[in-house]
């Protein structure tokens, strides 16, 4: 399996203010004052301590997909991803497994603010951690897209345990296919990644796969935090 690691800074990422506003709860996706200033101030500060680290592992064997059973197998390890994700991956020839983290410091900063009574700022930093790690993985995803394009291959959207009916408990199988402590991310018994602001999952690669721009709109999940993404 080929392994590649990435290191990114916040300045290299496209941090979408609308995503921040939406995750903070503003349905209009517009940040009002004083929250706009708080977001910009904490984002500026985060640039000094957040280092985003990501890593990908490309499978050696052909990806096996059984849409009817909702199963995909990567290098002999079988994942019960559900029919929906299996369907999205069905034309994939190989798989890329990924992780990305915004690190522990951003969660520590959120806790520190909460503990000293700066509730709004603590909540904002927690949301920033989520947005930064997704933006980091967006950047890695885009790099992968461009790299594979040169060889005539396309990449799918990324899919993660815990979303789209894929049981989060399968994180353990996913991590078993990656180097130990990959990007310093560990897994608790309950499948929670530490640092908490981390993402993991699978991306399909193939000549005939496509990136679905409106994947969230096709999903019927009722509790996904990205459900309202437009």
């Amino acid at each position, binding site marked *: 399996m080929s392994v590649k690691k990435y290191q990114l800074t916040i300045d290299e990422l496209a941090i979408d203010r609308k995503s921040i506003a939406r995750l*903070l*709860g*503003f*349905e209009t996706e517009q940040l009002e*004052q*004083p*929250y706009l200033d708080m977001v910009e101030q904490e984002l500026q500060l985060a640039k000094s301590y957040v280092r985003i680290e990501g890593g990908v592992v490309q499978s050696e064997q052909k990806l096996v997909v059984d849409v009817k059973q909702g199963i995909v197998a990567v290098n002999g390890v079988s994942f019960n991803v559900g029919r929906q994700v299996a369907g999205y991956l069905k034309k994939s020839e190989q798989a890329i497994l990924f992780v990305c983290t915004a690190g522990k410091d951003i969660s520590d900063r*959120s*806790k520190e603010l*909460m503990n000293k*009574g*700066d*509730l*709004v700022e*603590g*909540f*904002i930093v*927690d949301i920033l951690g989520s947005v930064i790690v997704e933006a980091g993985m967006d950047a890695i995803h885009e790099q992968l897209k461009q790299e594979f394009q040169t060889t005539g291959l396309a990449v799918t959207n990324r899919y993660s345990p*815990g979303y789209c009916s894929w*049981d*989060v*408990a399968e994180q353990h199988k996913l991590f078993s296919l990656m180097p130990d402590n990959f990007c310093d991310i560990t897994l*608790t*018994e*309950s*499948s*929670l990644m*530490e640092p*908490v602001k981390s993402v993991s999952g699978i991306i399909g690669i193939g000549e005939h796969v496509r990136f679905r721009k409106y994947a969230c709109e096709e999903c019927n999940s009722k*509790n996904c*935090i990205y459900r309202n993404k437009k």
Partner: protein
Amino acid sequence: MNDKLSTLAACIEFGKINKAAPYPPQMKGQDGADEITKQLLDEGVAPGDILSDALIKGMEKVGEKFSKNQIFVPQMLMSAKAMQFAMNHLKPFFATGEADRRGTFVVGTVEGDLHDIGKNIVAMMVEGNGYEVIDLGVDVKAEQFVAEIEKNPNCFIGLSALLTTTMANMEKIVSEIKGKYPEQNICIGGAPVTQDFCDKIGADSYNPDPQGVVKFLNSVAVAS
């Protein structure tokens, strides 16, 4: 009602922390929850009246507006912060028994789960509505909840979980608590939690938002 009590309720509702706070713009330069609470106490207004006639009233409006999507989490937290500044003046009176809280709420994120933002928001709203909150933090085991029930026999329990894997621990904790204290009121919440799950595990209340938790606590606090 004392005008200052109404003004204090408005400070809580709109998140006016103190005079120095520039938010909300329409109250810039005015005294906030911090100063007005102190003034009311200096004028001899009973701490219990300040709590029930101003602070809880303000927080109730916050909860209502949040339920109707008229305000969002940051505005609610701003109100909670204003509430904390006011409560700092009242805390000595709770300790001496000169003012009473509605009850005690013991809350924690269940064993195996480290997410705490949702739990913290619920804790702040519940505290703002006149309850003493004992926050056990994250990764809390059944025996820690049981120990708190032993120390606070009339408390209410709140369990939070964000992962489907830790919902199983929520079930285990409810079962262990109910095994020892069948009448113990337990409310549960968190992104993957549903009413069906609540019914299945024998918890007493599931609420998708903090205001629901407050309503549930108010209903059982009155009954008990």
